[in-house]
């Protein structure tokens, strides 16, 4: 791979402008103190000092709502027209926890029955990650072996070194991107990696320390544990945890026809916290109360995902801790499992 590069901070805007000329650029934008990933035409307004976006950039691979195909049933053969794919894109400024979450989504969507809608977006997206120099009070990526200064799965990793960014080129896609605007980059003077370690140290040291040792093994025997009765009491079933989660991937499929023969089928994010999620036609409901639904969410992240895909279904981004209106928090659940299991 290409040797480490360096990018002066006053060149970031030029880099973003250059990228936006040849690809769709998606980057974090702050408005009314909320940071979100949005398609932008230039580097104007892009922020890289944010701690984490309020919702993950998952949307650009698995949109909250996504047209799958259009149909026309007035046509005697029921013509189906597939959706056009996405243009080449650069997803800029992704934090290491969110990069890991994309690798976890790959395990789901790029498995048996490869999901072409997801894979099209994945193939056409170059991911530029940014290391964390600071952490939020809700961060615990270390619990899942994630390092705020590493981003396996990204194509390029930037690390803020004060006056410049260290640029680590991790893949072919990354090489292509850097090569396409090589005049903006300088070679790293060799001090970059050491400076990076120092720069990301606060994010490692200050984050919540959660030890997952033994949690999975305990959960293997805790399906009927009374803690699900008590922990689920305060859940209000709003589904916010699943909406802000970078690894949640459940969806519904719906036809929209507006009372006409022409319409489209779309899929949209759904949540295991909603009663209708598992309710079958005829009324059969295997998860009738908040207890079963709360249990399903935590069991899925910390036990079932491990059994199926060999990794936890959580990256410790802390969004659900911050947004849950009743503080039903996966970090607390992990602690509780260790206490009572």
């Amino acid at each position, binding site marked *: 791979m290409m040797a480490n590069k360096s990018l002066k901070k006053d060149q970031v805007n030029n880099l973003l402008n250059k990228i936006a000329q040849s690809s*769709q650029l998606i980057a974090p934008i702050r408005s009314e103190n909320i940071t979100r990933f949005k398609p932008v035409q230039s580097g104007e307004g892009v922020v890289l000092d944010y701690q984490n976006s309020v919702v993950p950039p998952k949307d650009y691979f698995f949109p909250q709502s996504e047209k*799958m*195909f259009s*149909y026309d*049933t007035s046509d005697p*053969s*029921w013509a*189906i027209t*597939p959706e*056009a*794919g*996405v*243009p*080449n894109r650069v997803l800029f400024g992704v934090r290491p926890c969110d990069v890991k979450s994309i690798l976890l989504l790959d395990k*789901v*969507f790029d*498995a*048996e*029955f*490869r*999901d*072409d*809608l997801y*894979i*099209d977006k994945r193939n*056409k997206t170059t991911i530029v990650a940014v290391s964390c120099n600071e952490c939020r009070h809700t961060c615990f990526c270390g619990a899942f072996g994630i390092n705020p200064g590493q981003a396996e799965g990204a194509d390029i990793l930037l690390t803020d070194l004060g006056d410049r960014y260290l640029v680590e080129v991790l893949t072919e896609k990354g090489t292509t991107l850097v090569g396409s605007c090589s005049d903006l980059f300088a070679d790293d003077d060799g001090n970059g990696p050491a400076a990076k370690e120092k720069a990301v140290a606060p994010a490692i040291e200050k984050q919540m320390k959660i030890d997952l040792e033994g949690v999975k093994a305990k959960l293997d025997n805790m*399906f*009927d544990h009374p803690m699900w009765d008590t922990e689920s009491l305060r859940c209000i079933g709003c589904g916010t945890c699943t909406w802000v989660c970078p690894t949640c*991937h*459940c*969806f*519904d*499929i*719906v*036809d929209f*026809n507006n009372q006409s*023969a022409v*319409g489209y*089928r779309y*899929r949209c994010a*759904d949540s*295991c916290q909603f009663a209708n*999620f*598992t*309710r*079958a*036609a*005829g009324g059969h409901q*295997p*998860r009738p109360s908040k207890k*079963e639904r709360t249990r*399903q969410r935590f*069991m*899925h992240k910390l036990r*079932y995902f491990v*059994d*199926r895909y060999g990794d936890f279904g959580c990256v410790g981004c802390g969004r659900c801790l911050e947004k849950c209106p009743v503080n039903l928090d996966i970090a607390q659940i992990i602690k509780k499992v260790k206490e009572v299991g």
Partner: protein
Amino acid sequence: MCTTKEVASPLTPHIATVTKIIDETSNVKTFQVVFDDPEVLENFGNMPGQCCMLSVLGVGESMISITSSPTRKGMLEFSIVKVGRLTEVIHQLDVGNKIAIRGPYGNNFPIDEMKGKNLLIIAGGIGLAPVRSLIDYALDNRDDYGKVDVVYGARSVDLLCFKYDIFDRWPKIRDTKIHVTIDREEEQWDGHVGFVPAYMEELGFSPENTVAVTCGPPIMIKFVLQGLEKMGFKDENIITTLEMNMRCGIGKCGRCNIGEKYICVDGPVFNLSQIKLLPPEF
């Protein structure tokens, strides 16, 4: 900017035409369908026990088991209970109408492991639909399988599905016995009266060299499993099919997740020892 090349999408259905409709009961119809593009069926490769996502575009999509055996060429059959929004619309279809289908999904009955063995099928109501694909498969390959016993029941005579099979076609095939029962006495019914699990025990079956396959309402399955255990059947030789609400059929949408399994891709066919490893969600 570039646009994608068209790639085969597992979530995009094929269009088929309804070629025959059989009224099974007051709320069950069997639909025979043929794909508009004959190549689709040639490459379909469906096996007994597998399912398809059926949809009427603009209404919705549901997972339905394929009730016909792959030995019956040129078409697929689906037996559908009128129970929800989509199935109400499907029940209004006429011969010649279109239906959208994708699949086949899921695993299948272990037809190779079952070779040389006797088959004991215990089904209730519409539960005969998924196992009918297995029964016809075994009977169409008659020499490959031992005796076939079907214990089948419904609440009333009207609610018995596939009357043409259970009374006319299957009993005429050698080493094949069909034991039919209904829950309560009815005029003009001189067959057995009683619940399926009790009738199965009354008939008595040896577990030797026999695989039991059961499908029906949960309460029936519960007592059938107890009965089979009493008769000495081992968990590995007791097979059932599970169902849960599904949307994608390809192990991604999360609805049919139970433990580490997705019923749509890892099931619907499980043996009892596999089911005992799953979290007890049912």
